[in-house]
């Protein structure tokens, strides 16, 4: 989700955001609506929340204005200007040029942003980047191929160098802070075993791994995975794909991002399973309601034992804030933006 916010408490005060339309809908709705029903869906008229829609250019811009009559109290800021579809570099640049008050920053750029004096708000790691192997591909028909690749990956180097320490190596589907059992899944590379396995495999076909064309982080990770796999004796090629090309069938695997919808390990796991099932063809056992830690652990272990899903890293959400943004708190996992409580400090003329 892309966010860059310009909050202007003067005339008219507007907070501008750059945001991807699809992902932002939930967030925007949380600003527009006051209540959710028991089914989790928002109820009541739009604009009954802290903000109402002021301008709307589909796919480009959404301006929300403060609801004067909001039962929870009028928001401190007058409006939020949400701009959509800007690249990560543009969002960062907007922050540096003071053309945005809030921008979502890629984790690997967070350190650079901090060195440039940008204030950062970093969440707990709540998004998993995983390598997912598609079913029915001849190159990965042998599950040992996937295992060799998985064992060859140096996650800590990816976290250190690519993510610039903004993230954690991931061995499990759920992060440690959520499940408490992620530490039981090894994240250390095992290149020796990976080599032994690759020697047993007779295939010489190059495995094609796709990544999002617009995602430089995925590109860097995919290239690094290719290097690690190559050291283990597995030939791997990386290819950028657009969303339309994702289902073209030319890929053997792809980097996938799975964002947690809540801090509850069960809810997130259910969401992950439903996302991964069509991609991998796996049919894991359903996640029971009220599942205990060991039950969730067993489900994770079963999913990961086939090596069709290879967790790589957990990355946090990182927001860059301009100097005048005040009282910004990191929203909880899956929670709404706290724009109603944010105010802008007036700059000295």
């Amino acid at each position, binding site marked *: 989700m892309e966010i860059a916010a310009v909050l202007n408490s003067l005339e008219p005060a507007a907070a501008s955001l750059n945001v991807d339309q699809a992902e932002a809908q939930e967030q925007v709705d949380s600003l527009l609506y006051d209540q959710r029903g028991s089914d989790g869906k928002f109820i009541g008229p739009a604009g009954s929340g802290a903000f109402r829609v002021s301008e709307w250019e589909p796919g480009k811009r959404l301006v929300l204005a403060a609801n004067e009559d909001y039962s929870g109290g009028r928001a401190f800021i007058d409006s939020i200007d949400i701009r959509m579809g800007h690249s990560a570099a543009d969002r960062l640049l907007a922050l540096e040029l003071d053309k945005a008050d809030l921008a979502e920053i890629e984790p690997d750029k967070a350190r650079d942003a901090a060195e440039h004096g940008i204030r950062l708000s970093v969440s707990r790691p709540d998004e998993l980047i995983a390598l997912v192997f598609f079913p029915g591909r001849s190159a990965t028909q042998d599950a040992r191929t996937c295992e060799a690749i998985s064992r060859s990956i140096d996650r800590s180097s990816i976290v250190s160098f690519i993510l610039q320490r903004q993230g954690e190596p991931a061995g499990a589907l759920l992060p*440690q*802070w*959520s*499940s*408490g*059992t992620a*530490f*039981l899944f090894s994240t250390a590379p095992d290149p020796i075993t990976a080599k032994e396995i690759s020697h047993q495999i007779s295939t010489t076909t190059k495995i094609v791994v796709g990544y999002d064309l617009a995602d430089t982080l995925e590109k860097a990770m995919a290239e690094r995975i290719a290097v690690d796999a190559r050291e283990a004796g597995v030939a791997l090629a990386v290819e950028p794909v657009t969303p339309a090309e994702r289902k073209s069938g030319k890929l053997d695997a792809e980097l996938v991002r799975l964002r947690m919808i809540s*801090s*509850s*390990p069960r809810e997130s796991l259910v969401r992950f399973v439903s996302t991964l099932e069509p991609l991998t063809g796996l049919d894991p056992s359903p996640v029971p309601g009220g599942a*205990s*830690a*060991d039950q969730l*652990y067993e489900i994770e272990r079963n999913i990961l034992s086939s090596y069709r899903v290879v967790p790589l890293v957990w990355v946090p959400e990182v927001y860059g804030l301009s100097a005048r943004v005040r009282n910004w708190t990191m929203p909880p996992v899956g929670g709404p933006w706290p724009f109603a409580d944010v105010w802008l400090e007036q700059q000295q003329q």
Partner: protein
Amino acid sequence: MVFAISFLAGTGQSQAQIPAPWNEALTSLAEKIVADATPASSLSVSSQNMSSLDQTTTNRIFAELIWEVSRRRGWEAQQQESTTGGPSYLLSKNLSQQLPADANVKVTFSEGADGYVWVAEISRGESQQIEMVSVSKQDTAGMSGGKPWLSLRRNVLWAQSQPLLDFAEEKLTDHPTGMITVLEPNRLATGNLNGGVLTISGTSPLTDIPVARDLRGRLQLSPNGQVTAYIAGSMCIAEPKNASFTCVHEPGKDWPFADGLEAVYVANRNYFAGLLSVPAEPSAAGRPFYSAAILNSGSKGPLILAELEGKSRLYDAANGPPSTFNGWGDDIAFIATSCDSSEHVLVTGVGDWTQPDRIQLYEISRGTATADGEPVEFSGPILALWSSDDAMSARIVSRNLHTGLYEASTVSVSCSN
């Protein structure tokens, strides 16, 4: 059972209780561990803390777990060197046989969004099993809320170029007067300490002191100001005010320890031949040691001896056979805290005279010793460590490897929540 009784009967201090749900979880985990480890005859159990619980809390929980597991199999427990950040124990039917562990258990105190998760990874040969219990977070208030945070505070009094064996501060109603009595290998000196500088006002030579490679000495101040110096096998008594003293050369003179315990000092060596009589801990009597820490519970209480083979042993008959602590230095001393009712000892490091040393505070509980707080680092070896008379602090003589000076310090425990 023995552990449990002593715990419930109390030892004179009130310890934070482990909440019942936690006890249930611990019990469940211990049962699982025992079941998975069977038929191993010895077990190495280590711990690490990945939760928001403080180390002391997790150490306490871990100690409970060790007790539960030991109780079920009738094993003895011996603390061993740990590589996981938390304490580690060897459990065995007969520790004296020093058999290697048949199975390894790694206990991780973890935490998720829904609560704590305590995980035990049991490895036996090539197989590994994982057991875990979930604990809700609401039950932790009684456990972790009241534990004070202990830290060591060092106060360097002065430094001098002549070798220093011990020193004593004259106190008046528990406040130092600034008068210092210094025991050196060849003399006894008195002086005034002001601003980190000791100005010697009077000296008395010591003669006929036996030659020892590692000469040790100790000063005792009586309430009337009389200074008694124990050096090698001699005892000298001095009156600071009149700067005169009388040395009584009594080979084999016993050095006094707390609570009337005495030990014979071997004159040409630097260790004690053994405590003469320890009614409460008969097994400790006669065992040679370098230093001793008599825990605050008095002569009937447990004591720790830093014994000659490089191990320290806790003699606490009420809590079972002696516990062995590895990785401790030769100098230990009991120290009391004003905020924590637990028993604590100060322990030096295991280096030699060419290496920097450290002082670490340990909490002794249920036959286990748990490091409490951060250690205090020294710039050179610690040459002497003695508890103060009121045990609220300890005197330390060390040598600074950079300057070559002998430093006189005191160490006390400060409390914070």
